């Protein structure tokens, strides 16, 4: 449904951030994108959603296609209208608007939809938002703000939802709750989800397929089962060492150990 082919992104005409990024997001699936800080995960999402421009970034090579049509370097509003909605990192709710106004803003591109019915639909996923619908969004807790950010995306009825680190700064229990809801949205609304995360453990639990990104390109991909078995993933992303093996000082100095995918 959504595919990136050898995408290259340059910021400010000099800084090369994505160096030939390729990935595939099939319809109706949850695809995880893992990677450390600065790997280029957020840039990948912004390249898809068209939000690079205000930051002086540009797709200079490769292609991004959505349902067969190239969408790179299109205006963000066109891309949202086509059905791709990015939930930005750090929640980014409209602080001075009420919860309900935030949701209505999310439905901005919808034409002829029934806003009231959409609101009810969002409230069934996030009952807590219903309790606070008149409240100023800036005063919500972090978890509620994240729910609002996802709810706002739901209002647009996107075909693909791009989630940028929904777990950021939230308590583990809340993260679990939000991931469960994301999974429900995927199953019940049929929304395809591209999930960018640092929390590898949870991502591999909910995703159908996952990519691991480093330094502006994909270094490893596979089903969660395959990735969980991969020695490097276990060590660097899941924090596990191989059981039964004798531990030595060499294992602790993991920074010395070469990742197998680096050539």
């Amino acid at each position, binding site marked *: 449904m959504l595919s990136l082919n050898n995408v290259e992104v340059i910021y400010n005409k000099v800084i090369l951030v994505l160096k030939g990024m390729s990935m595939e997001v099939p319809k109706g699936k949850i695809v995880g994108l893992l990677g450390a800080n600065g790997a280029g995960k957020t840039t990948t999402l912004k390249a898809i959603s068209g939000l690079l421009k205000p930051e*002086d970034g540009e797709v200079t090579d490769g292609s991004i296609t959505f349902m067969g049509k190239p969408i790179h370097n299109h205006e963000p*509003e066109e891309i949202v209208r086509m059905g791709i909605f*990015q939930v930005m990192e750090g929640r980014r709710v*409209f602080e001075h608007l009420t919860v309900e106004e935030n949701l*209505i*803003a999310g439905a901005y*591109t919808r034409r002829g939809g029934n806003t009231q019915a959409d609101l009810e639909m969002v409230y069934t996923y996030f009952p807590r938002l219903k309790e606070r619908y008149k409240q100023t969004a*800036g005063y919500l807790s972090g978890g509620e703000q994240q729910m609002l950010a996802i709810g706002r995306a739901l209002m647009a009825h996107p075909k693909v939802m791009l989630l940028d680190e929904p777990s950021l700064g939230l308590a583990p229990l809340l993260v679990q709750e939000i991931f469960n809801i994301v999974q429900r949205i995927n199953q019940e609304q049929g929304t395809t989800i591209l999930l960018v995360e640092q929390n590898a453990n949870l991502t591999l639990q909910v995703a159908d397929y996952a990519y691991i990104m480093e330094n502006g390109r994909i270094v490893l991909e596979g089903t969660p089962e395959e990735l969980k078995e991969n020695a490097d993933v276990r060590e660097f992303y899941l924090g596990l060492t191989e059981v039964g093996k004798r531990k030595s000082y060499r294992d602790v100095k993991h920074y010395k150990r070469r990742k197998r995918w680096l050539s």
Partner: protein
Amino acid sequence: MDLFIQLTLTGLTNGAILALAALGFVLIYKSSDVINFAQGEFLLIGAYVLFAMLVQFHLHWTIGLILTLVVAVGVGVAVERLVLRPLIGEPIISVIMATIGLSSLLRAIVSTIWGNQPRAFPPFIPSKPVHILGATVGADRLWAIAIAVVMLFLFNLFFTRSKEGIAMRAVADDQQAAMSMGISVKHIFAWAWSIAAATAAIGGALVANIVGVGPELAGFGLRVFPVVILGGLDSIPGAIVGGLIIGLLEAYVGGYLGMGLNQVISFIVLIIILMVRPYGLFGQEIIERV
């Protein structure tokens, strides 16, 4: 007592017109965080265009007013296209400086076309004196108050009920997040500037109807600052209440303490407000979660 009522009515009229000018100002600030120093020139353009429609083209005032609004919207769109769009992504201060340049430019255009001489304005609103509680006041002044009240009501409805209005406030809060949900920031800016120019044009027409047209009308723009600082830069009810308070204050001070002082009193208030309540009576406080 008569003097008091007289002053009150004068103050309310001036206040209503100030509020109209302030509304446009607040609208622009609310949607784009830009302080528009050219707001007074929008008033000027509104007054002169209507003047041209009535005196030079001999149109009926209803048609003239509608055409004036069309021109004002055109000016708003042009400003967005030519001044703001190239500055998207630049620091806000650059945009604010650009509006100062814009104000000189608009003033120069007006004086090139119509000259610098103040002229009498054919009153298009009946100014037949009306007696209220022993005071005498022109009907045009009462009209000004009524029009301002209606505009306030419409604005409030627009911002809390309509999708465009909510989107406008969303853009003011977080431009990038607004873009991520498909809100076109360019459209929103064009909307904001057009509406601001249109309300200012109505304000300008009302002032001109009372005092005639002349380049000093733009000075009204300066008097907007105490109003919006008092009411809160980003608050529409604040613009209205602030406008009325400043209007009344100027009238009372002028009437009881002597002319001349009324010109400075609003700026004295401005300084006091900045010291005790920097976000104004109704302004948004910055939300900080801890």
